[in-house]
């Protein structure tokens, strides 16, 4: 398919300008689309994971169907995420990921089963095991098997091709060429959130000890992932250290030092880092001022107050958000247009804003299009 060239700037230029805290031609818009094509195009969820050509075709189709947007997904990326032998919350080597065509029907979307309270994947004794024997000791290599291991490099090469195609042919940046997990987030997912919250009270020193041990390795693993896809964007995400889960005291002791170290290192190494922060971070936004200026973007969902974010971080970090995902299924184009306009009115000035949201896999297309079109018309910067 051909690129869409209707506007003064390409998406790459627009996104980079916004990240650098300047005003582009208009507010960039990013619908985070995972499996939405499955609902509208001749493709199964299983193909979206396992067939990088078909997935790329589907992503290009939906990109055109929606009239173009500013960050895209490379076909095959989902496979890399789930068949990653390094400790990652998306890896099926560690967690009970239900994947389409494996434990689910071909058209069903992947889901992560939260760890059981009584028999979680990672036991309390595994904190020491990680230090004594390494994190890979916890991996269950049988779950994927040799077939997936041999496919990994083949699909990796395809993902690199697709990534390159978005950047150079379409002039659109890709999302999440590589990713990494913060120790805190890994433990919470591997132990199960409820068990981990008890660990926070019972064995905080142990969490710190293992986090100190792991953090540099996790940084390296993120760089490994990105070297396979040949891309330049990295996602560092967290959702369980926000005010929806823990106190500022715990945030300061157990989460922030590691998060800061990882993000700062990636920026220093020249990657474009997306901080993907779901849930409510409003009361701890000021910590993000400690991160490098004008080099990052911060994704937030509707639980974080984006207007506060603009006030606190507007001159420091590009913010991105924050429409509520379920609105794209339950809402109407008029409702979405109204919200997008409000975000633009209050946050666009001076640049440093993307409008965006995670799009549910069964969203209505006209709702996604309403967000995109409003940014293209109402979001134009008039000099």
């Amino acid at each position, binding site marked *: 398919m051909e690129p869409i060239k209707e506007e003064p700037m390409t998406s790459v230029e627009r996104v980079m300008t916004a990240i650098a805290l300047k005003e582009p031609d208009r507010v960039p818009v990013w619908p985070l689309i995972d499996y939405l094509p499955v609902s509208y195009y001749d493709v199964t969820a299983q193909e979206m994971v396992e067939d990088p050509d078909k997935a790329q075709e589907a992503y290009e189709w939906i990109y055109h169907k929606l009239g173009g947007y500013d960050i895209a997904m490379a076909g095959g990326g989902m496979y890399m995420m789930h068949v990653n032998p390094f400790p990652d919350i998306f890896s099926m080597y560690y967690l009970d990921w239900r994947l389409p065509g494996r434990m689910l029907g071909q058209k069903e979307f992947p889901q992560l*089963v939260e760890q059981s309270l009584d028999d979680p994947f990672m036991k309390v004794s595994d904190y020491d095991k990680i230090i004594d024997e390494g994190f890979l000791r916890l991996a269950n290599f049988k779950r994927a098997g040799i077939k997936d291991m041999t496919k990994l490099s083949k699909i990796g090469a395809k993902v690199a091709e697709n990534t390159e195609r978005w950047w150079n042919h379409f002039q659109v940046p890709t999302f999440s060429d590589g990713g990494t997990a913060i120790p805190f987030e890994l433990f919470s997912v591997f132990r199960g959130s409820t068990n981990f919250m008890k660990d926070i009270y019972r064995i905080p020193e142990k969490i710190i000890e293992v986090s100190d041990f792991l953090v540099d390795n996790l940084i390296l693993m993120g760089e490994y992932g990105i070297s396979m896809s040949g891309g330049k964007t990295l996602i560092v995400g967290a959702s369980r250290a926000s005010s929806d889960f*823990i106190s500022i005291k715990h945030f300061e002791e157990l989460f922030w030092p590691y998060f800061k170290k990882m993000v700062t290192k990636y920026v220093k190494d020249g990657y474009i880092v997306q901080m993907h922060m779901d849930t409510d971070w409003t009361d701890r936004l000021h910590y993000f001022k400690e991160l490098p200026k004008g080099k990052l973007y911060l994704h937030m969902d509707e639980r974080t107050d984006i207007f506060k974010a603009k006030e606190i971080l507007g001159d420091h970090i590009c913010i991105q958000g924050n429409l509520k995902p379920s609105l794209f299924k339950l809402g109407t184009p008029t409702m979405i247009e109204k919200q997008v306009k409000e975000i633009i009115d209050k946050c666009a000035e001076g640049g440093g804003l993307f409008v965006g949201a995670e799009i549910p896999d069964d969203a209505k297309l006209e709702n996604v299009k309403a967000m995109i079109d409003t940014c293209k018309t109402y979001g134009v910067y008039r000099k």
Partner: protein
Amino acid sequence: MVTKEELIQAVEEIEEEKSYSLVKALLDEGTNPKEIIDMLRKGVETVGERFNKKEYFLTELVMAGEIFQQSAKILETAMKDEAETSESLGVVVVGTVKGDVHDIGKNIFVTLLQAAGFEVHDLGVDIAVEKFISKVKETKADIVAYSGLLTVALESMKETTEALKSAGLREKVKIIIGGLPVDEMWMKEAGADAYTDNAFKGVKIITNWLRKG
């Protein structure tokens, strides 16, 4: 002598080991286990209030629930000696609906319901409509609580409500939905009576319903 206030305060301050020691000490001193349960409940209640004021977070809510559950275990043997078991505030059937497996919030909600004195039937995750119906029939539930995070969960919530209607049970129960994304729009679509994104508030809503009923 251990005072009531000491135990309530230990729970409120999330001093886990201290709470267990105090429960044991109170028991040794001959305090009625039911009274101890009431003290624990009061402690959990205060933690919930501080959670609502944003002085406390989910971690503290989880810990308060844990302290309650572990203390109840310590008291179990002593309680068994008593002939009558305490009456529950009401029967709640809860589950994460079909197509969704998210249950962090649901599990905390269940613990808090138990701590508040409800009879709770937790069906688990990815629960088919029929399972909800048969459990409601079997337990003569007062309340049905659906949990969900994904938009697919909304369809399942709708279907579950429809099925309750067809089975002639809708008028007999109140329905509450819970999960981070639920809002008034979800509630209306799902045909529910209330919604909450806050486990502690959910318990409050149910308590008020049954008090009025």
